[in-house]
């Protein structure tokens, strides 16, 4: 029997394909050849316009790469307070954002799967806002921060036990390219 195949599909584009996610590293573009004396990265600290030598990262790219291991905060059950052990994550990201004022971060708030999905959007938003407030308190400009809550909709790991839940209650620091 044929299925009723009325295809009223709205195919939706990926919205965030260009963003650097915490677990990925985008390789650096090889810089164009220059006729200047070769500049080596790591010494020239100026932000915009710094050009690395062939095959190396700019200072900003290096700084961003260093954040790769400090771009997620995990939360206790039913809590949106930043646990003590993750305050250094806030500090590290705040330092980067202050140093590079054109940099932008998106804070993505998430929950574990328990409870009502739309209420969990609220909990994820509350977590993202808490981190945002902590960044502002350290001097980051408000214009550099956006927040989004995915609630329980985008878990980091599948699973229905406490170990999975603990990895899903999180705020991720996402730096769009």
């Amino acid at each position: 029997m044929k299925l009723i195949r009325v295809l009223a599909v709205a195919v939706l584009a990926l919205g965030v394909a260009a963003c650097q996610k915490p677990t990925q590293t985008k390789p650096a573009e090889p810089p164009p050849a220059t006729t200047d004396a070769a500049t080596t990265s790591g010494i020239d600290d100026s932000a915009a316009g710094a050009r690395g030598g062939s095959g190396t990262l700019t200072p900003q790219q290096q700084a961003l790469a260093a954040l790769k291991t400090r771009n997620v905060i995990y939360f206790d059950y039913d809590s949106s307070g930043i646990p003590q052990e993750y305050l250094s994550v806030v500090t590290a990201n705040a330092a980067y954002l202050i140093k590079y004022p054109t940099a932008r971060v998106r804070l993505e708030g998430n929950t574990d799967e328990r409870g009502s999905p739309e209420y969990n959007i609220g909990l994820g938003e509350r977590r993202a806002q808490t981190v945002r407030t902590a960044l502002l308190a350290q001097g980051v400009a408000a214009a550099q921060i956006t927040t989004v809550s995915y609630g329980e909709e985008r878990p980091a790991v599948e699973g229905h036990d406490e170990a999975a839940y603990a990895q899903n209650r999180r705020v991720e620091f996402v730096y769009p390219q």
Partner: protein
Amino acid sequence: MRISQARRRAIVGRTAWIALVAFAYVAPAAAQLRLDITEGVKDAVPVAVVPFAGQPEGGPNDVADVVSGDLRLSGRFAPLERADIVERPSQASEVRLEDWRLLKTDYVVVGRVAPDAGTVGFELVNVRTGQQMLAEQLPVAGRTLRAVAHQVSDLVYERLTGIRGVFGTRLAYVAVEGRAPNRNYRLVVSDADGYNPRTVAQSSQPLMSPAWSPDAQNLAYVSFEGGVSAVYVQRLSNGERRRVSARAGVNGAPSWSPDGTRLALTLSRDGNLDIYVLELATQALTRITTDEAIDTEADWSPDGRTLYFTSDRAGNAQIYRVSVDARDDVQRVTYTNSYNARPRVSPDGQSLAMVTLDRGYRIAVMDLKARTLRVLTDGSQDESPSYAPNGAMLVYATDARGARVLGLVSADGASRERLASERGNVREPAWSPFPAR
């Protein structure tokens, strides 16, 4: 009641489609949700639906199969297994009451498909009294035989219970495939029995919260396709849609006013999640809640004057009500258990379904006059309850064998079933209103 192997039909896998219902008596044509009866009504009424004359037995167009499945789905009836139906009367006059009394069945449905006349005729016979309780000739009129069969089910159900049948209504739900972080999301509309699934939207970003307009023509839903949440309204007949809210911050939890002109929404544009009412024709926005807490998941009373919603202003999620026209008149509704969320008002306005934390997250119904709470389910992660438009049943999301599936429960909790997807996980179901008569 176990579904025998002989009853199972081969399932034609169609990878593009979400699984639908597979009944005991119906050959699933495409991936179907499998119906499991987990707990039946103790006094489920035994009824025999005799294979209709004028059509081959078996296959998805077997009218008697569909009717049996519908009656079983309601939880109130125990249809006779086909193997136990040895006679084939096709008219009331051919029904030998003594034979049916031996089978301990209370009612018999007999009928015939007449393709030349373009009709399906049937009678409902009371086995004990011999009374012919219904006799109808239904025009096929361009419908599928399944649709006509659902009408037979509605008529039989209503005649025997006094309640309008929901077998011609639909479900919307979200189907999720793949594993984090590579999930794919679909918004699916199917028949109430899970048959005929149709993908109406799909995305690699989350889709949430489908909500039927009162005329059953449109779905509002939340999509993250732009990277952030936005609320869309999509016309089901042609797929046209418009984005009705893409304000800064959260856009969520759409709920249609009973007159179809407004959406209650959750927005965080003023700093934290609050309930707003959006006038669809003008985009005029009215703020309803102003508390600093999370206020979300609004649902309308049938008279359109009250909104029930979830708020954690008291420190944990509880349900509150607010008068749409007197917004400082906010009252707390739930006091039992430490978590109550996702209110859904029954069609008659007398009851409130919700998710409550009672040893596990479970579906409960509160009598709004008596303020008593009855827990209907016993899962650990039951959520997203939605009333059938006759108020007699709810669909909700639950677990079965490690997958997310849909559950059906009667409003009095007496019967419970599951609709399990062949593939992936199914969540956030919404039961359609009655189609316009």
